[in-house]
Protein backbone atom coordinates (compact mmCIF):
# COMPACT_ATOMS: atom_id res chain seq x y z
CA UNK A 1 0.00 0.00 0.00
CA UNK A 2 1.32 3.45 -0.85
CA UNK A 3 2.21 5.64 2.08
CA UNK A 4 0.70 9.06 2.59
CA UNK A 5 3.72 10.96 1.34
CA UNK A 6 3.65 9.29 -2.05
CA UNK A 7 -0.12 9.73 -2.24
CA UNK A 8 -0.55 13.25 -1.03
CA UNK A 9 -0.05 15.89 -3.67
CA UNK A 10 1.76 19.06 -2.71
CA UNK A 11 -1.17 21.35 -2.19
CA UNK A 12 -2.89 19.29 0.45
CA UNK A 13 -1.54 20.34 3.79
CA UNK A 14 -2.89 18.31 6.58
CA UNK A 15 -0.88 20.20 9.22
CA UNK A 16 -2.57 19.90 12.54
CA UNK A 17 -4.57 16.99 11.19
CA UNK A 18 -2.97 15.19 14.13
CA UNK A 19 -3.73 11.55 14.78
CA UNK A 20 -4.43 8.75 12.33
CA UNK A 21 -8.19 9.12 12.66
CA UNK A 22 -8.48 12.75 11.59
CA UNK A 23 -6.06 12.30 8.74
CA UNK A 24 -7.82 9.20 7.43
CA UNK A 25 -11.22 10.89 7.74
CA UNK A 26 -10.00 14.01 5.94
CA UNK A 27 -8.64 11.92 3.10
CA UNK A 28 -11.93 10.00 2.79
CA UNK A 29 -13.94 13.23 2.74
CA UNK A 30 -11.64 14.79 0.17
CA UNK A 31 -11.86 11.82 -2.18
CA UNK A 32 -15.64 11.71 -1.91
CA UNK A 33 -15.95 15.48 -2.38
CA UNK A 34 -13.58 15.56 -5.34
CA UNK A 35 -15.41 12.66 -7.01
CA UNK A 36 -18.74 14.49 -6.74
CA UNK A 37 -17.20 17.78 -7.76
CA UNK A 38 -15.49 16.49 -10.89
CA UNK A 39 -18.42 14.44 -12.18
CA UNK A 40 -20.85 17.24 -11.36
CA UNK A 41 -18.65 19.72 -13.14
CA UNK A 42 -18.15 17.55 -16.15
CA UNK A 43 -21.82 16.62 -16.57
CA UNK A 44 -22.93 20.24 -16.10
CA UNK A 45 -21.43 20.78 -19.56
CA UNK A 46 -24.56 19.11 -20.97
CA UNK A 47 -26.73 21.98 -19.72
CA UNK A 48 -28.22 23.58 -22.79
CA UNK A 49 -27.01 20.96 -25.27
CA UNK A 50 -28.70 17.75 -24.15
CA UNK A 51 -30.12 15.34 -26.74
CA UNK A 52 -33.79 16.02 -25.85
CA UNK A 53 -35.05 19.16 -24.11
CA UNK A 54 -36.57 17.25 -21.20
CA UNK A 55 -33.44 15.13 -20.81
CA UNK A 56 -31.29 18.28 -20.87
CA UNK A 57 -33.16 19.46 -17.79
CA UNK A 58 -32.75 16.04 -16.15
CA UNK A 59 -29.00 15.67 -16.65
CA UNK A 60 -28.52 19.22 -15.38
CA UNK A 61 -30.39 18.30 -12.20
CA UNK A 62 -28.12 15.31 -11.69
CA UNK A 63 -25.05 17.50 -12.17
CA UNK A 64 -26.36 20.12 -9.77
CA UNK A 65 -27.08 17.44 -7.17
CA UNK A 66 -23.48 16.22 -7.38
CA UNK A 67 -22.15 19.74 -6.99
CA UNK A 68 -24.41 20.23 -3.99
CA UNK A 69 -23.09 17.00 -2.47
CA UNK A 70 -19.53 18.16 -3.15
CA UNK A 71 -20.25 21.49 -1.51
CA UNK A 72 -21.59 19.74 1.60
CA UNK A 73 -18.67 17.30 1.72
CA UNK A 74 -16.14 20.13 1.34
CA UNK A 75 -18.04 21.74 4.22
CA UNK A 76 -17.39 18.71 6.41
CA UNK A 77 -13.76 18.75 5.33
CA UNK A 78 -13.51 22.40 6.32
CA UNK A 79 -14.60 21.48 9.85
CA UNK A 80 -12.35 18.42 10.02
CA UNK A 81 -9.09 19.99 8.82
CA UNK A 82 -9.89 23.42 10.28
CA UNK A 83 -7.02 25.26 8.60
CA UNK A 84 -9.02 28.32 7.60
CA UNK A 85 -9.96 27.08 4.14
CA UNK A 86 -13.66 27.23 3.26
CA UNK A 87 -15.53 24.97 0.81
CA UNK A 88 -14.75 27.22 -2.17
CA UNK A 89 -11.05 27.26 -1.29
CA UNK A 90 -11.04 23.45 -1.24
CA UNK A 91 -12.98 23.27 -4.51
CA UNK A 92 -10.99 25.84 -6.46
CA UNK A 93 -7.62 26.63 -4.95
CA UNK A 94 -5.55 23.52 -5.64
CA UNK A 95 -3.36 22.71 -8.62
CA UNK A 96 -4.62 19.85 -10.84
CA UNK A 97 -2.37 17.29 -9.17
CA UNK A 98 -3.89 18.26 -5.84
CA UNK A 99 -7.28 16.74 -6.69
CA UNK A 100 -8.02 13.24 -5.48
CA UNK A 101 -10.92 12.19 -7.67
CA UNK A 102 -10.98 8.69 -9.11
CA UNK A 103 -9.38 8.15 -12.50
CA UNK A 104 -12.76 7.08 -13.89
CA UNK A 105 -13.78 10.72 -13.70
CA UNK A 106 -10.74 11.91 -15.64
CA UNK A 107 -12.46 10.67 -18.78
CA UNK A 108 -14.05 13.47 -20.73
CA UNK A 109 -17.83 13.44 -20.69
CA UNK A 110 -17.73 12.36 -24.35
CA UNK A 111 -20.92 11.61 -26.23
CA UNK A 112 -24.19 10.67 -24.55
CA UNK A 113 -23.24 6.99 -24.35
CA UNK A 114 -19.96 7.85 -22.60
CA UNK A 115 -21.75 10.12 -20.16
CA UNK A 116 -24.38 7.50 -19.33
CA UNK A 117 -21.77 4.75 -19.05
CA UNK A 118 -19.61 6.83 -16.74
CA UNK A 119 -22.59 7.94 -14.67
CA UNK A 120 -23.79 4.36 -14.36
CA UNK A 121 -20.38 3.11 -13.27
CA UNK A 122 -19.89 5.99 -10.86
CA UNK A 123 -23.37 6.12 -9.32
CA UNK A 124 -23.38 2.36 -8.66
CA UNK A 125 -19.88 2.42 -7.14
CA UNK A 126 -20.71 5.50 -5.08
CA UNK A 127 -23.82 3.73 -3.86
CA UNK A 128 -21.69 0.90 -2.47
CA UNK A 129 -19.41 3.45 -0.79
CA UNK A 130 -22.32 5.40 0.68
CA UNK A 131 -23.76 2.20 2.09
CA UNK A 132 -20.47 1.56 3.92
CA UNK A 133 -20.43 5.10 5.30
CA UNK A 134 -24.13 5.29 6.20
CA UNK A 135 -23.56 4.22 9.80
CA UNK A 136 -20.28 6.10 10.20
CA UNK A 137 -19.06 6.85 13.71
CA UNK A 138 -18.44 10.37 12.43
CA UNK A 139 -21.93 11.73 13.04
CA UNK A 140 -21.92 14.68 10.62
CA UNK A 141 -20.87 12.35 7.83
CA UNK A 142 -23.56 9.78 8.67
CA UNK A 143 -26.23 12.50 8.67
CA UNK A 144 -25.08 13.96 5.39
CA UNK A 145 -24.84 10.55 3.75
CA UNK A 146 -28.42 9.75 4.81
CA UNK A 147 -29.61 12.76 2.81
CA UNK A 148 -27.30 12.11 -0.12
CA UNK A 149 -28.50 8.50 -0.44
CA UNK A 150 -32.09 9.68 -0.69
CA UNK A 151 -31.15 12.01 -3.53
CA UNK A 152 -29.02 9.35 -5.23
CA UNK A 153 -32.04 7.05 -5.56
CA UNK A 154 -33.25 9.18 -8.43
CA UNK A 155 -29.80 9.14 -10.03
CA UNK A 156 -29.74 5.36 -9.95
CA UNK A 157 -33.27 5.12 -11.40
CA UNK A 158 -32.39 7.53 -14.16
CA UNK A 159 -29.07 6.04 -15.25
CA UNK A 160 -30.53 2.55 -15.00
CA UNK A 161 -33.31 3.37 -17.44
CA UNK A 162 -30.85 5.01 -19.82
CA UNK A 163 -28.25 2.26 -19.86
CA UNK A 164 -31.02 -0.25 -20.57
CA UNK A 165 -32.40 1.85 -23.40
CA UNK A 166 -29.01 2.41 -24.99
CA UNK A 167 -28.15 -1.28 -24.76
CA UNK A 168 -31.55 -2.51 -25.99
CA UNK A 169 -31.74 -0.06 -28.89
CA UNK A 170 -29.01 -1.99 -30.70
CA UNK A 171 -27.26 -0.54 -33.73
CA UNK A 172 -25.26 2.63 -33.29
CA UNK A 173 -26.52 3.18 -29.77
CA UNK A 174 -25.30 -0.18 -28.48
CA UNK A 175 -22.02 0.18 -30.38
CA UNK A 176 -21.31 3.54 -28.75
CA UNK A 177 -22.17 2.16 -25.34
CA UNK A 178 -19.86 -0.82 -25.82
CA UNK A 179 -17.04 1.48 -26.96
CA UNK A 180 -17.51 3.71 -23.92
CA UNK A 181 -17.54 0.76 -21.53
CA UNK A 182 -14.44 -0.65 -23.14
CA UNK A 183 -12.57 2.65 -22.76
CA UNK A 184 -13.66 3.21 -19.17
CA UNK A 185 -13.91 -0.34 -17.87
CA UNK A 186 -10.35 -0.60 -16.54
CA UNK A 187 -10.85 2.65 -14.59
CA UNK A 188 -14.33 1.90 -13.25
CA UNK A 189 -13.11 0.37 -9.98
CA UNK A 190 -10.89 3.34 -9.10
CA UNK A 191 -13.79 4.83 -7.14
CA UNK A 192 -13.52 1.94 -4.67
CA UNK A 193 -9.76 1.38 -4.68
CA UNK A 194 -8.53 1.14 -1.07
CA UNK A 195 -7.41 4.44 0.45
CA UNK A 196 -4.36 4.97 2.55
CA UNK A 197 -5.58 5.14 6.12
CA UNK A 198 -8.15 2.38 5.50
CA UNK A 199 -7.06 0.50 8.64
CA UNK A 200 -7.68 3.69 10.62
CA UNK A 201 -11.07 4.24 9.00
CA UNK A 202 -12.11 0.70 9.90
CA UNK A 203 -10.66 0.79 13.40
CA UNK A 204 -12.59 3.99 14.24
CA UNK A 205 -15.80 2.84 12.57
CA UNK A 206 -15.77 5.66 10.04
CA UNK A 207 -16.49 3.06 7.38
CA UNK A 208 -18.29 -0.20 8.13
CA UNK A 209 -16.35 -2.47 5.78
CA UNK A 210 -13.14 -2.52 3.71
CA UNK A 211 -13.13 -1.06 0.19
CA UNK A 212 -12.48 -4.52 -1.20
CA UNK A 213 -15.85 -5.65 0.19
CA UNK A 214 -17.60 -2.59 -1.24
CA UNK A 215 -15.99 -3.27 -4.59
CA UNK A 216 -17.02 -6.92 -4.58
CA UNK A 217 -20.62 -6.00 -3.84
CA UNK A 218 -20.56 -3.36 -6.58
CA UNK A 219 -19.08 -5.75 -9.17
CA UNK A 220 -21.76 -8.34 -8.35
CA UNK A 221 -24.52 -5.81 -8.95
CA UNK A 222 -23.09 -4.36 -12.13
CA UNK A 223 -22.24 -7.86 -13.37
CA UNK A 224 -25.85 -9.00 -12.99
CA UNK A 225 -27.15 -5.99 -14.93
CA UNK A 226 -24.53 -6.31 -17.63
CA UNK A 227 -25.25 -10.02 -18.09
CA UNK A 228 -28.95 -9.26 -18.43
CA UNK A 229 -28.21 -6.58 -21.06
CA UNK A 230 -25.64 -8.74 -22.86
CA UNK A 231 -22.79 -6.36 -22.02
CA UNK A 232 -19.28 -7.70 -21.29
CA UNK A 233 -18.08 -8.01 -17.70
CA UNK A 234 -15.96 -5.23 -16.30
CA UNK A 235 -12.22 -5.95 -16.21
CA UNK A 236 -10.32 -5.61 -12.93
CA UNK A 237 -9.13 -2.13 -11.98
CA UNK A 238 -5.92 -1.19 -13.73
CA UNK A 239 -3.13 0.27 -11.55
CA UNK A 240 -5.18 0.57 -8.33
CA UNK A 241 -2.19 2.08 -6.46
CA UNK A 242 -2.58 5.19 -8.59
CA UNK A 243 -6.37 5.16 -8.66
CA UNK A 244 -6.58 8.82 -7.74
CA UNK A 245 -3.45 10.38 -9.16
CA UNK A 246 -1.82 11.08 -12.51
CA UNK A 247 -4.74 13.06 -13.85
CA UNK A 248 -5.42 13.35 -17.55
CA UNK A 249 -5.00 16.28 -19.89
CA UNK A 250 -8.78 16.43 -20.15
CA UNK A 251 -8.92 17.12 -16.41
CA UNK A 252 -6.14 19.69 -16.60
CA UNK A 253 -8.10 21.56 -19.27
CA UNK A 254 -11.23 21.39 -17.10
CA UNK A 255 -9.23 22.68 -14.13
CA UNK A 256 -7.82 25.61 -16.11
CA UNK A 257 -11.30 26.62 -17.16
CA UNK A 258 -12.96 26.22 -13.79
CA UNK A 259 -10.35 28.34 -12.01
CA UNK A 260 -10.10 31.01 -14.70
CA UNK A 261 -12.33 33.70 -13.21
CA UNK A 262 -11.38 33.00 -9.60
CA UNK A 263 -7.67 33.30 -10.45
CA UNK A 264 -8.24 36.61 -12.23
CA UNK A 265 -8.81 38.45 -8.93
CA UNK A 266 -7.44 36.39 -6.07
CA UNK A 267 -9.13 37.14 -2.78
CA UNK A 268 -12.06 39.00 -4.36
CA UNK A 269 -15.65 38.30 -3.36
CA UNK A 270 -17.80 37.06 -6.21
Amino acid sequence: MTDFAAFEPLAIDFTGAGDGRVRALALLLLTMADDEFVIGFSDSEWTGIGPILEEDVAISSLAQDELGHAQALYGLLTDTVADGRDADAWAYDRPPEGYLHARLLDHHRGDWAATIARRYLYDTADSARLEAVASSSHRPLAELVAKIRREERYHLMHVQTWIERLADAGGESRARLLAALEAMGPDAGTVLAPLPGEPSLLRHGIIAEPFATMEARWRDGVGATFRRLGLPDLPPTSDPAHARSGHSDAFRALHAELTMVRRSEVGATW
Partner: protein
Amino acid sequence: MTESTGGAPATPGVLEPWEVFRREKDGDPMRHGGSVMAPDATLALHYAREMFSRRQESVHLWVVRRGDIHDLADLDLLQPPLDRSFKKPGGYVMRDKLAAAREQSGQAKPKANKGTR
Protein backbone atom coordinates in the same frame (compact mmCIF):
# COMPACT_ATOMS: atom_id res chain seq x y z
CA MET B 1 -74.20 13.02 -26.71
CA THR B 2 -71.18 13.50 -28.92
CA GLU B 3 -68.60 10.74 -29.05
CA SER B 4 -65.58 11.74 -27.04
CA THR B 5 -62.48 10.80 -28.99
CA GLY B 6 -59.85 9.21 -26.76
CA GLY B 7 -57.14 9.55 -29.37
CA ALA B 8 -54.94 6.93 -31.00
CA PRO B 9 -53.81 3.87 -29.00
CA ALA B 10 -50.29 3.91 -27.52
CA THR B 11 -47.49 3.30 -30.01
CA PRO B 12 -44.39 2.08 -28.22
CA GLY B 13 -41.23 4.04 -28.93
CA VAL B 14 -42.89 7.25 -30.11
CA LEU B 15 -42.40 10.58 -28.41
CA GLU B 16 -45.83 11.80 -27.45
CA PRO B 17 -47.31 14.29 -25.01
CA TRP B 18 -48.01 13.19 -21.45
CA GLU B 19 -50.15 15.53 -19.36
CA VAL B 20 -48.76 16.25 -15.90
CA PHE B 21 -50.90 16.79 -12.80
CA ARG B 22 -49.40 17.93 -9.55
CA ARG B 23 -50.33 18.34 -5.92
CA GLU B 24 -48.52 21.30 -4.41
CA LYS B 25 -48.88 20.41 -0.74
CA ASP B 26 -50.76 17.93 1.40
CA GLY B 27 -54.48 18.48 1.24
CA ASP B 28 -54.40 20.28 -2.10
CA PRO B 29 -56.22 18.86 -5.12
CA MET B 30 -54.38 17.58 -8.17
CA ARG B 31 -54.02 20.39 -10.69
CA HIS B 32 -52.94 20.29 -14.30
CA GLY B 33 -49.41 21.65 -14.71
CA GLY B 34 -48.54 21.17 -18.37
CA SER B 35 -47.16 18.42 -20.56
CA VAL B 36 -43.89 16.63 -21.34
CA MET B 37 -42.80 14.71 -24.41
CA ALA B 38 -41.70 11.18 -23.52
CA PRO B 39 -41.58 7.71 -25.12
CA ASP B 40 -43.15 5.92 -22.14
CA ALA B 41 -44.39 6.27 -18.55
CA THR B 42 -40.98 5.87 -16.86
CA LEU B 43 -39.35 8.78 -18.61
CA ALA B 44 -42.62 10.74 -18.49
CA LEU B 45 -42.45 10.54 -14.69
CA HIS B 46 -38.78 11.52 -14.57
CA TYR B 47 -39.41 14.44 -16.88
CA ALA B 48 -42.51 15.51 -14.96
CA ARG B 49 -40.34 15.58 -11.85
CA GLU B 50 -37.84 17.78 -13.67
CA MET B 51 -40.34 20.18 -15.19
CA PHE B 52 -42.69 20.47 -12.21
CA SER B 53 -40.71 19.72 -9.09
CA ARG B 54 -37.17 21.05 -9.50
CA ARG B 55 -37.82 23.53 -6.74
CA GLN B 56 -39.53 21.01 -4.53
CA GLU B 57 -42.83 22.60 -5.48
CA SER B 58 -44.85 19.37 -5.65
CA VAL B 59 -45.54 16.47 -3.28
CA HIS B 60 -47.28 14.22 -5.80
CA LEU B 61 -47.32 13.92 -9.58
CA TRP B 62 -49.50 12.07 -12.06
CA VAL B 63 -48.66 11.59 -15.72
CA VAL B 64 -51.30 10.55 -18.22
CA ARG B 65 -50.89 9.90 -21.92
CA ARG B 66 -52.83 12.65 -23.68
CA GLY B 67 -54.40 9.98 -25.87
CA ASP B 68 -55.86 8.27 -22.79
CA ILE B 69 -57.80 11.30 -21.64
CA HIS B 70 -61.56 11.33 -22.22
CA ASP B 71 -63.34 14.63 -22.02
CA LEU B 72 -66.78 16.22 -22.04
CA ALA B 73 -67.50 19.82 -23.00
CA ASP B 74 -71.06 19.52 -24.29
CA LEU B 75 -73.01 22.40 -22.69
CA ASP B 76 -76.35 20.60 -23.10
CA LEU B 77 -75.03 18.15 -20.55
CA LEU B 78 -72.94 20.49 -18.39
CA GLN B 79 -75.12 23.58 -18.41
CA PRO B 80 -78.68 22.33 -19.10
CA PRO B 81 -81.04 25.26 -19.68
CA LEU B 82 -84.01 24.72 -17.35
CA ASP B 83 -84.19 26.16 -13.86
CA ARG B 84 -82.19 24.28 -11.28
CA SER B 85 -82.06 26.91 -8.56
CA PHE B 86 -83.64 24.44 -6.11
CA LYS B 87 -80.17 22.77 -6.11
CA LYS B 88 -78.34 25.94 -4.97
CA PRO B 89 -78.42 28.19 -1.88
CA GLY B 90 -79.49 31.13 -4.01
CA GLY B 91 -82.73 29.35 -4.73
CA TYR B 92 -84.04 29.98 -1.21
CA VAL B 93 -84.76 33.65 -0.53
CA MET B 94 -86.67 34.05 2.74
CA ARG B 95 -86.03 37.64 3.74
CA ASP B 96 -89.59 38.89 3.39
CA LYS B 97 -91.10 35.79 4.98
CA LEU B 98 -88.76 36.07 7.97
CA ALA B 99 -89.55 39.76 8.39
CA ALA B 100 -93.25 38.94 8.46
CA ALA B 101 -92.68 36.13 10.99
CA ARG B 102 -90.71 38.39 13.34
CA GLU B 103 -93.34 41.10 13.16
CA GLN B 104 -96.03 38.57 13.96
CA SER B 105 -94.12 37.15 16.94
CA GLY B 106 -92.80 40.48 18.19
CA GLN B 107 -89.24 39.09 18.18
CA ALA B 108 -86.19 40.99 16.97
CA LYS B 109 -83.83 39.50 14.45
CA PRO B 110 -81.39 37.32 16.40
CA LYS B 111 -77.73 38.44 16.53
CA ALA B 112 -75.39 36.63 14.18
CA ASN B 113 -74.21 33.42 15.80
CA LYS B 114 -70.42 33.52 15.92
CA GLY B 115 -69.97 30.84 18.51
CA THR B 116 -69.11 27.26 17.76
CA ARG B 117 -69.78 24.29 19.97
